[in-house]
């Protein structure tokens, strides 16, 4: 990472610490904001957050590793999360999953080369009456069919 980038990141984290407060309880909101913007939480950010909140970097890492929406590895610009829980499964999740994999040319858990899409499975999204369902970043899509899912992803391209 370039020094310039480091400085911007530090400034950004300082702003977030001012916004949410210097308490330990601000850790998740800060991590969520960094994750949203950078699609992961870089090592350097982990160190800076730890320094500014006065906790050990290992603590920060340990929290990141616990939550499925936080990651230390870079993810794509669009994170596609398809529900694999039973109600969506019964409504045809497998066909949708296969179509997305085919179209993006990656498996679940992978990111496309151009860093545009990351594909993941997730557990119940609370849309079980309208499955199969997926979220892309924070937007929800329901009643998916293979065609509909592909169309949604194409529109993001």
């Amino acid at each position, binding site marked *: 990472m370039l020094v310039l980038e480091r400085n911007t990141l530090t400034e950004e984290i300082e702003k977030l610490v001012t916004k949410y407060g210097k308490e*330990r309880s601000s850790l*998740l*909101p800060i991590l969520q904001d960094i994750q949203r913007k950078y699609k992961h939480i870089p090592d350097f950010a982990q160190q800076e957050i730890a320094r500014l909140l006065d906790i050990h970097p290992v603590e920060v890492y340990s929290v990141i590793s*616990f939550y499925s929406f936080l990651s230390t590895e870079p993810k794509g610009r669009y994170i596609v999360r398809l529900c694999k*829980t039973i*109600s969506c499964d019964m409504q045809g999740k497998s066909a949708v999953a296969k179509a997305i994999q085919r179209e993006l040319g990656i498996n679940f858990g992978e990111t496309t080369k151009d860093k545009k899409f990351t594909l993941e499975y997730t557990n119940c999204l*609370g849309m*079980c*009456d309208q*499955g199969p369902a997926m979220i892309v970043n924070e937007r929800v899509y329901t009643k998916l069919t293979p065609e509909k899912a592909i169309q949604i992803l194409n529109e993001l391209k």
Partner: protein
Amino acid sequence: MEKKRNGILIFSEYSRGAGIKKALESSREDILFELRESNLRGRGGAGFPTATKWTLVAAASADQKYVICNADEGEPGTFKDRVLLMEYPELVFDGMVIAGYTIGATKGIVYLRGEYEYMLKFLEDYLEQMRKDNLLGNNILGKEGFNFDITIRLGSGAYVCGEETALIESLEGHRGEARNRPPYPVNTGFLGKPTVVNNVETLASVPHIVTKGGNWFRKYGTDKSTGSKLFSVSGDCEKPGVYELPWGTKISELLELVGAKNTKAVQVGGASGICIPKSQFDRTLAYEDAATGGSIIIFNESRNMLHILKNFMEFFVEESCGQCTPCRIGNVKLLEGIEMIEKGNYTFAYINNLKELGRTMQVASKCGLGQSSPNAFLSILENFKEEIFNGNGGQNGK
């Protein structure tokens, strides 16, 4: 926004702020009295009496107390909170303000699951409107000295955070690992302060109870399960969705209502609940019989019960916080057992050992996740023996 619904209690007439107004005209004791009269029990599934919880926190002396709305609904098959938050935010937030007044708290926090981030803007705007109307902020509705405000915090994709102590850990900036209890959040909750943690639906019931009275509420339901319940219905039926029904409704009645045909089994309570076979469809939905936080998943004759069970166990293996051994290892073992059955590669002695393990997990796990995760395993293997152990590796049905 979707259209407003009709229902006996939760979905009955209510105008924003009415409950707060009524509450502020009453004493705290009056509110607790009505709540006790109503016999409202926690709608998250555990069923702890709400009045008892509130009374304990109201009685605690502390410089700061908190009201937490548990909007981390992650149980497979449930989506009632989604409907309440998007269509009835006035009920949920008014309920929080009333709780704040009753227990003497100035701060409310909504712990919203990360998957519901798309609601955030709408809910924030709603809170802003409440501030403008003096339903939040200082001296609410002119009541000198009553200050209360609500913030929303997002989860980050961890089912276990629906457990109230894990939720508090998460709010404090830690891994969402369940705490040892006691102490309970009523004494040592968020940041060590007395805290009321209530489910979204529980809070949404409160404004109705305050405006219409505990007696009115108790008229519905059964003796032990008063009032109504929201059921999130999905699976094999014509009309999936959220239904408000009185407690004590028979499973068969619900199936009729939602247009379920050729039903083989109903999963009551989601992955952590129990699977009820056709022969028991006259059982009632109530705390004293088939208890549930609201998830109802319907399976028709074409479904493979072993496949369903496997889906549930994969869920628990992923969602266990890993802190205690019965749950961390136990769920993996149960899943392995299912895979062995799937391949037709098992002995009954081994399966019986796994059932024993399941019962051990129910008593030895630290929190509700591990205590309830063997439910599906035990009830499905018991109730669908013939289908599952038919000699061709559980390949009966689709």
